[in-house]
């Protein structure tokens, strides 16, 4: 059996997070709203209405284009894509066809096992979404809320070579969209939708075989599973002498299987023509510069810089740049602390991230600011508090909004390194636990850890662990 490679391209639809729709002033996000409540004459296709372009849509899409290294075209056009469907109220979708907002572009995709795959972007344009159709009790119910919600359609070249690469691309895309604050990019809510085109060929070949299209995947895991299942199916089919036909497949996530939706023999003719109701989109130098001024350092660039500049391991850099606000937090904490960035990384990844996840607070809204975190680490470094006090301080600052220093002073959390005071506590512990003392003295000296724990407990974590251990050794050996 020859070795096969998969050829995968992804067609993504990205719902932009604008406040209003692309061509009218209805609220764009209808999540959890009752059907047909965010609609007006324009987005429900009444006779006589006209679309008016929401500039923010252009700006957000252009920002994505810039992040994908695509060229933002000075002039682009809207076109009508004509077809009949009940949830398409005008009978055509306003989209862009031959002169879209941006051309070219790519993403260099770092894979976990170390190599990088360049994914070319074939197409990037803006368009309006259609409504939703639901079949219920033999009736077709139409919800126009989603009509006119702004979308970016972005299509990759056939550049992905495995189900993992396809999943990784979506992960990176989702990260980027949130980073740029242009989409919520939630696949479960349909803010990010992906259809996969899959074909296989013997490894090393350079032709393209007939492909199938997988639709209806609504998570990154589902996409990976669906693509893998389709690769396996195609290999099996070819190995058993069969042919691959250009099917459209539907992924059933519950059953974990692909189902054939339809054969795709002929391409539909959408009779594209220029949308006469909208002027060309002209992005002059002033507007372009204003848009590009919003373009931040991108997640993969920042990730590389963290590894280079702060000498962080790839693992740390990846987690810290998972979200833009977290990476900003980290950098501010590094500055506030002034010492080893890896030490800050450990604190952020363990303690701050836990707080963010447990309390569902974004990094920029934490009351334990990067400056406070730097202060805590410095307190630990100086020996004024021990590590476990430091860790509990992270939560205390978040709870009280007081500075670490104030809390340490107010609660007397400073390390007890006063010999006499410690000896008092340790003597009490020894007296109260004669059984353990004899165990120790019987030769099982590892039980000293248990004694340290007891002392810590009694001192409410303030005992200097080093000193405690040496006093314990001294007293128990008597």
């Amino acid at each position: 059996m020859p070795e096969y490679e998969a050829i995968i391209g992804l067609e993504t639809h990205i719902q932009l997070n604008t406040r209003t729709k692309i061509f009218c002033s209805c609220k764009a996000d209808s999540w959890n709203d009752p059907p047909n409540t965010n609609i007006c004459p324009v987005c429900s296709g009444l006779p006589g209405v006209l679309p008016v372009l929401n500039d923010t849509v252009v700006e957000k899409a252009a920002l994505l284009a810039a992040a994908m290294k695509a060229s933002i075209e000075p002039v682009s056009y809207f076109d009508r894509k004509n077809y009949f469907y009940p949830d398409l109220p005008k009978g055509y979708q306003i989209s862009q066809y031959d002169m879209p907002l941006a051309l070219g572009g790519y993403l260099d995709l770092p894979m976990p096992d170390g190599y990088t795959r360049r994914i070319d972007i074939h197409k990037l344009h803006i368009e309006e979404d259609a409504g939703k159709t639901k079949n219920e009790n033999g009736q077709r119910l139409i919800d126009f809320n989603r009509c006119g919600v702004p979308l970016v359609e972005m299509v990759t070249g056939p550049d992905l070579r495995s189900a993992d690469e396809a999943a990784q691309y979506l992960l990176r895309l989702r990260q980027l969209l949130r980073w740029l604050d242009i989409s919520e990019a939630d696949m479960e809510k349909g803010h990010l939708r992906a259809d996969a085109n899959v074909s296989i060929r013997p490894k090393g070949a350079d032709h393209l075989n007939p492909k199938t299209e997988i639709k209806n995947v609504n998570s990154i895991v589902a996409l990976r599973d669906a693509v893998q299942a389709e690769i396996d199916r195609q290999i099996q089919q070819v190995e058993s002498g069969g042919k691959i036909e250009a099917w459209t497949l539907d992924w059933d996530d519950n059953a974990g299987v692909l189902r054939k939706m339809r054969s795709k023999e002929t391409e539909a003719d959408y009779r594209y023509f220029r949308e006469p109701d909208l002027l060309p989109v002209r992005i002059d130098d002033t507007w372009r510069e204003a848009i590009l001024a919003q373009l931040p350092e991108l997640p993969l660039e920042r990730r590389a810089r963290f590894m280079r500049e702060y000498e962080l391991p790839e693992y740390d850099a990846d987690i810290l740049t998972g979200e833009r606000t977290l990476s900003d937090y980290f950098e501010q904490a590094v500055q506030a602390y002034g010492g080893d960035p890896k030490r800050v990384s450990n604190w952020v990844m363990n303690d701050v991230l836990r707080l963010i996840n447990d309390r569902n607070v974004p990094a920029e809204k934490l009351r334990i600011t990067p400056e406070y975190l730097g202060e805590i680490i410095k307190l630990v470094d100086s020996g004024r508090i021990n590590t476990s006090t430091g860790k509990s301080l992270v939560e205390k600052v978040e709870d009280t909004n007081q500075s670490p220093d104030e809390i340490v002073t107010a609660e007397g959390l400073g390390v007890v390194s006063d010999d006499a005071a410690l000896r008092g506590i340790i003597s009490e512990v020894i007296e109260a636990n004669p059984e353990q003392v004899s165990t120790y003295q019987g030769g099982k000296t590892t039980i000293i850890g248990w004694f340290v724990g007891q002392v810590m407990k009694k001192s409410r974590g303030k005992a200097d662990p080093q000193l405690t251990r040496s006093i314990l050794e001294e007293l128990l050996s008597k």
Partner: protein
Amino acid sequence: MDLCDLPAIDISRLIHLGEISALEVLESALERVSAVDGRPGTLDPGDKESGDNEKVHAFIHLTADRARAQAEQIDQKLAAGEDLGPLAGVPFTVKDIFCVQGTPSTAGSRILANFIAPYTATSVARMEAAGGVLLGKVNLDEFTYGSSNESSAFKPTPRNPWDPEKVPGGSSGGSTAAVAAGQGALSLGTDTAGSVRQPAAFCGVVGLKPTYGRVSRYGLIAFGSSLDCPGPVARNVTDAALMLKTIAGADKSDGTAASLPVPDYVNGLRESIDGMRIGLSPDYFRITYFDETTGELDEQPISAEIESAILSTAGFLAQMGADIVEDIPMPHTKYGVPAYFVISRVEAASNLHRYDGVKYGYRTPERVDYLPELYRKTRAEGFGPQPKLRILMGMYVSAAQYSEQYYNRALRVRTLIRRDFEQVFDPQGPYRLNALLTPTTPTTAFPMGEVYGDSVLMQYADQLTVPANHAGVPGLSIPVGFDTQGLPIGAQLLGPDFSELTLLQIGRAYERASDGEDWRQRRPTVVAQGK
């Protein structure tokens, strides 16, 4: 002369002065409607009734109650000393291709017969805000597809007030017939290939197609979106200027509406036309068409009576100080109709997609289990022959395998037509024209039933008007006399982008120069007989 025969500008002035009331004017207009209009168009007119052929039948839907409420409000405002607006108490009609909140907005089609618009078109809203009193919605060719008004699904269709055996023209035939017969001083029409100017010429009134984008299209049920222009219909140039001033200007609901400031078209009429260069082009004194059997371009001169009326118009303008420049080449005029056939139908077919029986309008009463069957039956039953022809043609010429050959080629022709205009209006060019003077139509109003059914022949009624729609430039049709049958003749003035004021000045200058002519005293047959 009744109150309803007064020009809009006089009605407004007299109401402002308190000399007449808005309600009096309205009642006069309503009396005129009941005297001349006969029964309104309906989907199910039954047998022909006696007298149908002598009436105008401009209306589909009279909004008398709404109008009375508006007129009373004007009178109350006057009593309270409030601002009345420049169209105070002026009764006007609206071509039923515009949405007006709470009124049936039918487009003259069965498929929209039950559609009550939930919003009001920008231009209508502006007229009402200026104090205009909406008399009702008037008939038109179905979805504006025609030049005679005979294709409306609402019958009886309008007749020409000067001779009810003749068509009023179209597609704004209800508008021009109503204004000619004194059923409102103004009407809001639309012009996609000549649909304001051609019926204005046939009915002896003033019709203006503004520059594309000068007037918002919001609320205008679309035909050819890149060609459609709302435009005023009035009995004189000053009223057309007054109405244009009211409806023109940027609109946040229409991104293609121009944001250029709106000139004072009315006060601007005082300016002289001395020294203006007005051109005559031989390309506008003939019609060219493709021979049915050979496919070769053939040509015919326009009627001699029309030609001499236009030359006489040029003479009056010369008296007023204009320079008449002859032999202006407009070589691509002859391709206007074929290119229009393609472009307008591609846009029309797409614009008609939304009428699918799903959301509003007509839906087949038959039970269907298969979705495409709902579309097929609904559209087969709801659309008349003209929309169907346009859908067939539009779908054909925009199909992937034909669009280069037809649609894209037509767009290139359109560019050439635009270039004809740019060259003759170029202030640095060889011709430096302020305007072109042409006949509006190749013939005067033709008999009812004579041309209808031949959509190619019908289209040639637009040959002299459609180039302005391709180019986007403004065109004004003014009455300049009558032929020997007693039918009105219209002259057309065409100018560069946003030159409406110039065209109106020329039109007004002609009115002043020809004021003493006997034909100016004529009144439409239906009005004279209705007395």
